């Protein structure tokens, strides 16, 4: 720990050269295999099964768009929705549907895995020119941050936002290096992004934070080469570009509805604060604290923009655990940068006794190793995970596939009560039948629908009335869910049991006689 010392503090981070010199360019190219190899290795983390409950209804919507265009109203729920359909991810949904149609879930997994890995690769490149950060440090940082954020990656629209944020971070970095042209990549980027995922607001927030921080820093005497006006102009155009989407300005209302929904932020796990009893949040906390310690250990004060972004992203993560991926993106270049600075500072304090001269690897050796790593990752992790047998098994075990099939065959058109998390899967299984009540598009359903759902889910007073009022006399639920236990207690009958996902199809029955023991759902006929 570097501690109480009279601070001969240089201003902020090392000023950057406006353009890379030839040796720098050579070093950058020589380090590229490290980064490509690390990104390829990170595919083992970013290539994930369909674990996000929302992926299913996005897939269903994508199929509908391909058939009939973007729906005007909510397409799956028998109760409809109070708010109009926004179609905020229509492009992602179309892409997802096309990928699944072309190569099954495995192809979509692979594609989104590449997007996730690319995001961290881009983030690792977002360091100032002239800093000379060793490629191994960048590669290690990439892998660490990707691992820590791995739980929220996979096949989901948010991964697009992760990539978009990384690209914005790279653009801001190049802008601060003095490149005026880089910022004009922003409007087209946001045009595409706003049609892929509503998380583009994170990118705009990053841009505004960068402009404000640089302006303030310059005002207090800090060395800043970048001109703020071009960035602000490009940001303004990017903001306008986000209006070019099927919903127009209503897209912004959708975003506001999502963020201001108190029931959503309190009830949905992904919107809750991280649980530090789990392993990966601890790792992420250690990384954040580690970077703050590295700030103190280096020779210079941290770059003010780095501090603003890290503190902002950390605050967003503490609010909602789904923001861990954005924090990881912000963290990736900083970890490499400040670890390198601290390492160099320590070496200055304790010069090596025997000067070492690194040997030079033969030309192409780095690329050969990177190709080997990429090949090994694809063969040992990606291909087995994306094989159709694996994805089918995952669907059978993770989702009520057999139960849904049985319900579709024996209870066609019945209004099914199910979990919020399973609503998307059932919606996708019965796209034209409107059998589900609610699923993950909470901004369209509004706060009241979510609260009504919680009346049943939390067995609040009147939960049976709520089911009856909405005409739900059938249910597809996990056996060990409290609604299942309660329904069996009050006379619902298990129609069939899906052993693969440990779920059951239930039908409402008469109240059992006094003292009667409820049936065991696992003894019901197999679905």
């Amino acid at each position, binding site marked *: 720990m570097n501690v*109480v010392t*009279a601070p001969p503090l240089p201003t902020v981070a090392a000023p950057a050269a406006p353009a890379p010199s030839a040796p720098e360019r050579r070093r950058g190219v020589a380090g590229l295999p490290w980064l490509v190899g690390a990104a390829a290795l990170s595919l083992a983390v970013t290539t994930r099964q369909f674990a996000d409950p929302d992926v299913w209804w996005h897939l269903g919507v994508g199929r509908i768009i391909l058939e009939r265009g973007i729906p005007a109203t909510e397409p799956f729920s028998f109760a409809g929705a109070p708010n109009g359909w926004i179609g905020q991810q229509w492009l992602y949904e179309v892409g997802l549907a096309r990928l699944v149609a072309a190569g099954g879930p495995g192809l979509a997994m692979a594609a989104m895995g590449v997007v996730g890995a690319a995001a961290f690769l881009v983030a690792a490149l977002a360091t100032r020119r002239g800093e000379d950060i060793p490629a191994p440090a960048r590669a290690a940082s990439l892998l660490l941050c990707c691992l820590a954020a791995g739980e929220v990656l996979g096949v989901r629209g948010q991964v697009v936002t992760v990539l978009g944020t990384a690209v914005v971070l790279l653009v801001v970095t190049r802008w601060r290096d003095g490149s005026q042209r880089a910022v004009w990549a922003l409007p087209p980027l946001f045009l595409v992004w706003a049609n892929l995922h509503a998380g583009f607001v994170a990118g705009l927030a990053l841009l505004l934070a960068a402009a404000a921080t640089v302006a303030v820093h310059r005002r207090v005497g800090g060395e800043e080469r970048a001109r703020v006006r071009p960035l602000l102009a490009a940001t303004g155009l990017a903001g306008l570009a986000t209006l070019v989407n099927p919903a127009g300005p209503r897209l912004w209302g959708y975003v506001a509805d999502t963020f201001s929904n108190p029931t959503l932020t309190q009830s949905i796990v992904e919107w809750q604060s991280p649980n530090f009893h789990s392993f990966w949040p601890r790792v992420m906390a250690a990384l954040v604290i580690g970077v703050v310690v590295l700030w*103190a250990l280096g020779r210079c004060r941290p770059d003010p923009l780095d501090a603003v972004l890290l503190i902002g992203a950390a605050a967003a993560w503490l609010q909602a655990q789904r923001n861990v991926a954005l924090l990881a993106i912000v963290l990736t270049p900083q970890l490499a940068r400040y670890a390198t600075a601290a390492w160099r500072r320590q070496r200055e304090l304790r010069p090596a006794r025997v000067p070492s001269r690194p040997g030079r690897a033969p030309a192409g050796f780095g690329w050969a190793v990177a190709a080997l790593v990429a090949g090994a990752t694809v063969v040992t992790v990606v291909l087995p995970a994306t094989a159709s047998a694996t994805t089918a098994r995952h669907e059978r075990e993770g989702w009520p596939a057999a139960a849904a099939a049985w319900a579709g065959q024996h209870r066609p058109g019945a209004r099914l009560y199910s979990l919020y998390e399973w609503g998307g899967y059932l919606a996708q299984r019965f796209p034209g039948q409107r059998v589900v009540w609610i699923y993950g598009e909470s901004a369209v359903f509004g706060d009241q629908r979510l609260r009504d759902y919680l009346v049943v889910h939390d*067995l*609040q007073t009147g939960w049976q009335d709520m089911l009856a009022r909405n005409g739900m006399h059938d249910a597809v639920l996990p*056996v060990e869910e409290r609604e299942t236990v*309660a329904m069996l207690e009050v006379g619902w009958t298990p129609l069939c049991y899906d052993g693969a996902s440990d779920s059951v199809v239930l039908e409402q029955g008469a109240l059992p006689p*006094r003292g009667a023991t409820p049936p065991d759902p696992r003894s019901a006929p197999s679905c």
Partner: protein
Amino acid sequence: MAADGSGSVRRGRARALTTPGGLFLAAVLLMSVIPVTSAVRDPDFWWHLRAGQLILDQHGLLGTDPFTYTVSDHHWVMHEWLTEVLFAGLHRAGGLGLIVITLSAVTMAGIACIALRARLPLPALGHDDPPGGRRVGPVPIGVGILLAVIAGYPIWGPRAQMETFALTCLTLYLVERHLRLGGRALWALVPIFAIWGNLHSGFTIGAGFMGVVLMTEVVARRFNWSGRAPRERVRTLGLVLAACLAMIVLNPNGPQIYLYAFQTQFSPAQQELIQEWHSPDFHDVVVGAFALMVLSLAVMVAVTRQVRPRDAALALLTIAMALQSVRHIALFIAATTPLWIEQLDAVARLRPRQPRSASAGPARRPEPPTFFRVGVVAIALVLPLPFVAAKVAAAAQTREDSSFYATDFPVCAARWLNAAPAGLRVFNQYGEGGYLALRITPAGDRIFIFGDAALMGDALLLRYGSVEGISSAWNGVMTQAGTDIVVFDVATPLATLLSQSPRWVEVYHDDHNAAFVPATQRGDALRARLPQAGAARGSDGVCGSSVTTAVGPAATVAARTLP
């Protein structure tokens, strides 16, 4: 000369109090009494009180659990016996109010120790940390204390943990004072730890923090980091720590007390099921103050880049602990607030100041007359007093069976149960076990579970969790344990389920609780002997018309006296 010197010091302190900063700090400290003083919110408080009453009655510690019908054979490591005896003694002397005021004073003492630690002379820059004489001003201290008091709001209140909070603050103050100024005051920790080991198992925190400081100092010397303390003082710290650890053994449980403390910290069932052990919810505005402290501390450290290694180690440790469990925010406040204050002071000093022209000489404003100073102090300190007094009086006047507690604890249900036949086995909510232990176990009833999680054991906690969370085993767990009656919060899934289940019959209902008996012959027999709801109402109006009986005639039940 000495008298003159101390007189001038006193005058200087009096003058410092009348500066705007001094007034701000004094007002903050005074206003801190408001959040720190509250009625009982900690569900464990009640069973501690009952345990203390039993110890005083029996003139000895309790060997096994006297409250439950589930783990009554478990050996009870009474690691807080002295606190429990103090609670019972204070309760006999002045009722609940005296306990509330005493624990509020204890918490305030801890906060005062934080202010004193932040006010210690700052070391001159360089190695071996000699005191430079400059002290942090009252404004940063006031701001830091204000933020800390807000951040600790979920934790404050009458509870045994406040003793650990105050003693941790005192320990860290004495350690820091010793490392900066030397002297023999550090040895006072040895008798303090002897008492602490009998008050609360949080002594491990105090000893752990001392160990962290000691190890950091050793490492700092090994790597020649600046900001470390002189070698002799570190050596003394090591000796004092060893003596403290030895003194801990002086308790009725001997060395076993160490094992107990660690059992609690590393129980997965406790960490999962008990809300206080959960990670902080940052949607809560109050927890936001803690987040603000952590994030602003990171920024300030990045700006000033001046942190003593021991402070950094304590900050990192307590941030990690507080992120893990919301109850540890109190430890974060105890350990890290002085660092936050010092950083704020350092950041404020980075601001470029206007140089004074040499010719102008030192510009000093004329001092205001004494009556003006006294007047200002009086107004600044007297104005908040009514608010503080009102809060303290309100908290101190509460009684355990008053309407004040009827919204959070089963006050009316306990009255009703006290009118029921004795010897009932009551399945209860975890957070209400302590209150029921105080109110109904004296008459011979037994409860399913209460808040001494280590005594309950992980197996019972998990069984309880399967009922509260309504797994398929919920009914079996209750019936296999021999439960006679269930008393649970009305606004819970279990109460809703029981009220609709054909296997249970509701026999009592009020705004806060409902009671159910099994729909069996045995349950019918019990139901016939249960009292009417009127038994809960009493004459004081605490349990009003909301109390209803869901069953028919009740047998005549002998009234039982409250404990």
